[in-house]
């Protein structure tokens, strides 16, 4: 019984280890794909991606408390 449980413990642990490695491999796979698809060619360009001509950098958005706060000060 003890031997049987021991075998099951080892078996289950190796299954978990296998899937843990699979998660790591998926991360490595994404990295390799990113490298070869040119994602790191111009790394500074990435920072500008949330902005565009409609919502350019330099213009804060969502400042909805500003008007209220200004009125309270006045």
């Amino acid at each position, binding site marked *: 019984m003890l031997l049987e*449980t021991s075998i*099951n*413990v080892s*078996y*289950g*642990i190796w*299954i*978990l280890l296998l*899937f*843990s490695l*699979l*998660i*790591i491999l*998926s*991360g*490595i796979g*994404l*990295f390799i794909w*990113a490298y070869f698809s*040119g*994602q*790191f060619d*111009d*790394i*500074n*360009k*990435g*920072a*500008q*991606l*949330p*902005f*565009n001509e*409609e*919502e*350019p*950098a*330099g*213009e*804060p*958005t*969502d*400042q*909805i*408390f*500003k*008007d*209220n*706060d200004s009125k309270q000060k006045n």
Partner: protein
Amino acid sequence: MIGGHQSEIDSTFQSIRFLDEKARYPVLFLVVSGVFWLLFGSLLALMASVKMHAPEFLGQLSFLTFGRVRPLHLNTMVYGWASMTGAGVALWLLSRTLRVAIPMRPYIIGVTALWNIALLVGSVQILAGFTRGIEWLEFPVSTMIVIVWCILVIGIAAMFMLFYRNVKTLYVSVWYIIAAFLWLPLLGGVSSMPIFDTPTVQAGMNWWFAHNALGLWFTPIGLAAAYYFIPKVIGRPIYSYGLSLLGFWGLALFYNWNGFHHLIGSPLPTWFVTISIAASVMMIIPVVVVAVNHHMTVVGSFSAVKHSPTLRFVVFAAMSYTFVSLQGSIQALRTTNEIIHFTHFVVAHAHIGMYAFVTMMLFGSCYYILPRLTNWEWQSHKLIKAHFWLSAIGIILYTVPLQVGGVLQGLAMNNPDIPFMDTMNLTIPYLIARSVAGVLLTVGHLIFAYLVIRIVAKVGLKPEIPGVWSKKIKEA
């Protein structure tokens, strides 16, 4: 168009107005469903919390006993509120960052409806006493498989967006979200396999799943939101894009081994647990990277935090992420674990992760997204502020006393001269503080739900132009 595939989207249809219009119904359905489960889960949380210091409370009704109410609170919050709202936020973020409309919209609405039914069935099952008895996995396997399948379908829509995107370079938020949609179905599928049948292995699988559900599903979505909303609201790019990518791959490499540190002292092989402790400590690298990046981006723009409802919640959440992650690394050490294991300290730690980080991030995201989806204004700025302060004060009042009480509880349990009942009595004031905090949080949730209902139903006067939009968009 990327990858040589046809896309119906041209530059005219990449405008944010168009993308938000297409995102409206699937994202709103996910968010509104999430808010319903937030309220239901809060009610269950209050019941469970009161029962900890007043065990006779609702004790005559079998379906409202602690062993059923507490797991249901956990499951509705995890798979209802956080997962549904998180999926909605993730889809909206992908649409914005990949400049492509959300595809498969009728399917997403359909699986969201199915997801709600599964949660309803699962809730009845747990209240009736049918449960797997595994923390974070109390729903019966059949119910869990339906939920995982729903997330998988939404994940397929996310992959289509990646495939048909209109930008070449992927923003860091996209990396996090795509990885989350890859990892969660894997975690859900593995944990539903009928092979973890011995108690020791089941405990291992339990913490492998639960810890990874937080770290590889909710954390990526939360960080994706932070990396989008912080620069977007203050109008300044992220401090270092290179660091943000380092943080992502650090999470991918180190996080998934972390869960087994919950089983220090268990019959699992020592080497197995030691790997987990080492990985937990290594998580300091990506966490510090993320913290430095967020801090350096916000420095000099603290007025934007004050004026933006989104940024108030998001910055609070980002700070909580740093805190809870570093605390987690310290908790994983054997010397610390000797004291805090089996105490309320761990419960408080989990709430810093799932509430102070994940839930606050989702609140902040909703405050940004919903006016853009509905073309409507939030009803009341005062109520938003009240929601923020109730949530912030509530979660601090929840976690600080409970962690102090947890340490005292652990020290007392390790002292053989102190009777067990004395240890239990010692924790009661801290448990009462938790119930008070729970009331504050629930009031905050009611305010949030009221605001969401008002904006989705478009009740009240129609604003001329929603104030959340930037000047340029107003002119357009």
